[in-house]
């Protein structure tokens, strides 16, 4: 009923406008995002600017919490007034392409992406060589550590190898009886990315991987060694207490609070937590420094996991809506929309302490990106290995998360985890490929 009314309205408007001699029709598109209100305000300001210059287009923002983003997209994507533009996590793209939801970028826009983004990121937004969206934020992982606690324990610098990691963690752990009150090294649980990505960063930095094409390789020695390291840290060296690492539904919570309060000395986390950390720590934030992932015995260099977000266009929208959406995205992600040669998107991301991905944005924001905290990340961008974007990615992350948590909480041995997780991941891949 509503869509009939709005198309009726459009016809009437069009007729009236034609009668006035100016022939344009108003297109309304929607932008679905998980950004918090302050950031949505920035997006709305950019939209106002665009609408002023492009009177035929109206853009409405729909913000939902991160936890609801995928389910919203899944339930709304095929509805007539489903979201036109959606900010999505790259892992969701393959399935959206397969279900015919993601609109392939018209040539002009895909050329824009190819010309202005690094190859790895072009890969994140493509499937079978076709570009499906504009990349925006890129995130990667680094070892975060508390310099004050390090100084107290008499340690000079962050660990660069596993031996150093274990040795430092031992010096940094304080106990009251049998309970750990300060843990040397923290692990996160109850949130897929928080569990899997740091683990995978260690795996890559140990010269291992968990997938070979479409086969799971958790049982390769370099990969299993990381799970064994986790087990050792928790049960043998007792420098990690998993109960201190819980994450809540907004992917913050006790694990963050413990680090912010100096009860966790080291933790591997992504750059986007900068604003949450700053909020929690205030001035004490200056105690925090970042360093590359410690390299394992089988590895040569640190290789953190990276992942990206992108904006995609809904192929179920009308042709005018899609055209308007791509045009808006080109502007939003282009060098004319923001300050000093940055794009509006670059400005928005920088305000959240997130690393923009467009080459010109990285240049335009080099000041913010050279802050001590972010340098630990930005310097590793060239080493970063993207999380594999495969069909069934969410499910695989979840399966890995469940098994890693079972090991962390003493419910499974490392050998069992390796065997079973490998089997489960193989099953998921088989179903999809």
């Amino acid at each position, binding site marked *: 009923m509503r869509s009939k009314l709005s198309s009726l309205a459009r016809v009437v408007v069009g007729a009236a406008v034609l009668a006035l001699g100016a022939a344009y029709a108003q297109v309304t598109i929607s932008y679905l995002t998980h950004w*918090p209100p302050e950031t949505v305000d920035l997006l709305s300001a950019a939209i106002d600017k665009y609408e002023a210059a492009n009177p035929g287009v109206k853009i409405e923002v729909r913000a939902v919490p991160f936890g609801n983003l995928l389910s919203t997209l899944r339930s*709304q994507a095929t509805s*007539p007034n489903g979201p036109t533009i959606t900010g999505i996590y790259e892992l969701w793209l393959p399935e959206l392409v397969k279900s015919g939801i993601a609109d392939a970028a018209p040539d002009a826009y895909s050329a824009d992406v190819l010309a202005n983004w690094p190859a790895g990121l072009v890969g994140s937004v493509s499937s079978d060589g076709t570009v499906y969206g504009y990349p925006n934020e890129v995130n990667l992982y680094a070892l975060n550590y508390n310099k004050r606690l390090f100084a107290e324990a008499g340690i000079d610098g962050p660990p660069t190898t596993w031996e150093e990691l274990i040795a430092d963690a031992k010096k940094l752990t304080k106990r009251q009886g049998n309970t750990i009150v300060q843990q040397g090294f923290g692990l996160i649980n109850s949130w897929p990315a928080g569990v899997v990505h740091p683990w995978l960063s260690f795996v890559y930095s140990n010269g291992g991987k968990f997938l070979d094409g479409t086969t799971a390789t958790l049982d390769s020695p370099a990969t299993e060694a990381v799970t064994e390291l986790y087990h050792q840290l928790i049960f043998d060296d007792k420098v990690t207490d998993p109960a201190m690492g819980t994450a809540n539904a*907004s992917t913050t919570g006790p694990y963050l609070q413990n680090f*912010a309060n100096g009860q966790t000395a080291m933790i591997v986390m992504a750059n986007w937590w900068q604003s949450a950390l700053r909020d*929690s720590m205030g001035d004490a934030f200056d105690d925090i420094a970042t360093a590359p992932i410690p390299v394992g015995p089988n590895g040569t260099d640190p290789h953190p996991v990276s992942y990206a977000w992108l904006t995609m266009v809904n192929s179920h929208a009308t042709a005018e809506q899609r055209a308007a959406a791509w045009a808006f995205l080109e502007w939003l992600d282009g060098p004319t929309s923001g300050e000093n040669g940055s794009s509006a998107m670059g400005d928005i991301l920088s305000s959240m302490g997130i690393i923009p991905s467009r080459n010109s944005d990285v240049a335009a924001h080099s000041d913010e990106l050279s802050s001590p905290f972010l340098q630990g990340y930005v310097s590793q961008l060239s080493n970063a290995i993207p999380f594999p974007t495969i069909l069934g990615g969410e499910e695989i992350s979840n399966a890995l998360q469940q098994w890693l948590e079972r090991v962390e909480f003493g419910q499974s041995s490392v050998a069992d985890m390796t065997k079973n997780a490998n089997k489960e991941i193989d099953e998921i891949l088989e179903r999809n490929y």
Partner: protein
Amino acid sequence: MQRRLLMAVQYLVYALIVVLMLFPLFWMVASSFKTPQELQALPPVWLPSSIDFSAYARAFSTVPFARSFLNSFVIAGGSTLGILITSIMAGYVFAKLHFRGRNQLFALVLSTMFLPPIVMLVPLYKIVQSLGLVDTLAGVMLPNIANAFGIFLMRQFIAGIPDELLESARLDGASEWTNLWRIVFPLLGPAIAALVVFAFTFHWNSFLWPLTVLQSPDQQTVVLALNRLVSYTSAIKFQNVVMAGAVISVLPNVLLFVFLQRYFIAGIAHTGSKG
């Protein structure tokens, strides 16, 4: 003497129960007035130093609470009205009219009370989607009106109305429709009150179904707005905003309860006593 001792013990238990029941609510309200410093203090501070409503202002500006109140009201009110109408009509039939298979049908209707909504979530969503009602208040309300509990409650109550009243009206040529609305309906006061309070509260508080159907921020209900509020507050210093949101979402029900509790309790007791 022993009686006095027993009474003292019972008063002690009374006090203990009151403390345990009310402490979480006290904590919620008190925390909504705390400053960020007080929230981050260790050990935790129990009483805020002043009554500061800034957390409430922030809650209202972070998510559209005002609009969500309207949405919740429409959904709860609309569902309740729908449930009332269908339950009274169906309850009358099951209590007072006879047809073959009536009791079996009633048993079938009753059995639907035992179905956890999650079992029907996916197809229900698809049905609502095919009716074009996703992300609308109507889409939430429509399945809500199918309510076996209301039919049960009304049937139990109407069964207690003497048949003679209806028979003499029938002899005078009144139709069942007239019987229902002219004779039975005015006698349903307590049952209606109980069902209204039940249904309104239940649908105001409901989370999973509205979560599935509603997505746009300005369509969301108060509980969904609270859920969003929680997601946007990442540090402990924002707990006052979250607690303020909780107070806001809880207040209407508490007020409803304070004024209408006896109907609520009478209604529950009524269902319980018939087993």
